[in-house]
């Protein structure tokens, strides 16, 4: 039962792990069956969508270094103009109304790899302070053993200047930890970036509480 506090605020519903069978509800085809006419989460990139086509991919590692094969991965990002497809984003300027900016997938049951084909986001205007954020993609993961969905940010290796002035990256005190958020370009594969997530250990990814 939900009881308001003395000021009338309602407490947030607590999180619980998504468990090993998250695919049934959110990506049923991966669970092994077809049920909905329309499956949510695919990123559609029609010819009218502007921006550099990129592929982002990676794996998620547990504290022993083992690859996690049963995770859900969602992304949320700006379009190539740095705008979010949402009415709250009232920043003036052009926007790509046909680009949703949201994607959902599961890590592969065999290889543990996740990937999205998307566009490289533009720089988003800062809400607090002047200037712009470095291009980045919000990455949210849920899985068995993860009790509260984990939010992190994917930045791009080849945006060194923007990254150096990004207020969020600069807030990370230890340079080694900052590196956990930088997706690396793959040699030989054009426009592909690798972003591995480490849940624990020396290379533990920086997660955010926003």
């Amino acid at each position, binding site marked *: 039962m939900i009881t308001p506090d003395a000021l009338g605020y*309602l*407490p947030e519903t607590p999180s*619980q*792990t*998504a468990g090993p069978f998250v695919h*049934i*509800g959110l990506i049923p085809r991966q669970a092994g069956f077809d049920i909905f006419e329309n499956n949510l989460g695919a990123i559609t990139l029609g010819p009218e969508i502007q921006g550099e086509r990129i592929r982002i991919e990676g794996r998620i590692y547990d504290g022993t270094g083992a690859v996690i094969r049963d995770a859900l991965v969602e992304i949320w990002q700006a379009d190539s103009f740095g705008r979010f497809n949402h009415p709250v*984003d009232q920043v003036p300027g052009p926007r790509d109304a046909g680009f949703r900016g949201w994607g959902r997938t599961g890590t592969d049951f065999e290889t543990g790899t996740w990937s999205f084909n998307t566009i490289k986001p533009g720089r988003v205007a800062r809400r607090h302070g002047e200037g712009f954020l470095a291009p980045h993609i919000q990455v949210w993961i849920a899985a068995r053993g*993860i*009790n509260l969905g984990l939010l992190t940010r994917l930045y791009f290796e080849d945006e060194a200047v923007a990254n150096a002035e990004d207020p969020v990256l600069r807030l990370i005190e230890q340079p080694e930890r900052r590196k956990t958020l930088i997706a690396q370009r793959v040699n030989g594969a054009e426009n592909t970036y690798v972003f591995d997530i480490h849940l624990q250990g020396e290379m533990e990814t920086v997660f955010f509480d926003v």
Partner: protein
Amino acid sequence: MAQEDFIQRDLAAHPLPISPIYKTSMFRGPTRPPLSLKTGMADLTGPIFGAKELGPRDNDLILNYAKAGFPVGERIIIHGRVLDGNARPLRGVLVELWQANASGKYRHRNDHYIGAIDPNFGGCGRCLTDGDGRYIFRTIKPGPYPFRNKVNDWRPAHMHFSVFGTGFAQRLITQMYFEGDPLIRHDSILNTIPDAAARDRLVARLDLAASVPLDTLAYRWDIVLRGTRATVFENKLQGN
């Protein structure tokens, strides 16, 4: 639409990232504190879903995978509202649900439990909240099932819920339990939440008034996503 910051999350009302009673979390929960940020545009915004993306039977699990008859089990309705922390209804937000069947068996290639698959039950559904923030599903009550943690650990009957708010920072996945289930107090997953009052917020109440006589029992469960605070005074205070 006004820009409001989300009120910071009360992490004490959530499970600990690493909970010894739930062994898998020992290997998968972050060990370091998260970095706290002021709300950015990427947090205030999030995907918006339209009614056209969903099918008419997506929220009726009794019918949405029925092949040659109805699924076996107790016919139930689960309904409630999605509100924010300011007690305002969240309209048109996506609620997704998945569950085991009456035998405690999931339709999933990785579920090896001995329970029987029900040919007429898929086990997932989804809907958008209406103008009052209400959601409703018709389904069958899931059965309890064992899981590998301690050797005799059992999950109480539960539904998995995934919810979007208006902003990506409100994203939530959780589980709902049924009032009166004796397995609730033994559950190693629910008990990852240290606060008893918070655990109780995941327990749906029997709602006889909303039940369909001679047909279907109802349970009611409200979902609360993070609330917001207006930022109208922020500049004034900071700039003196």
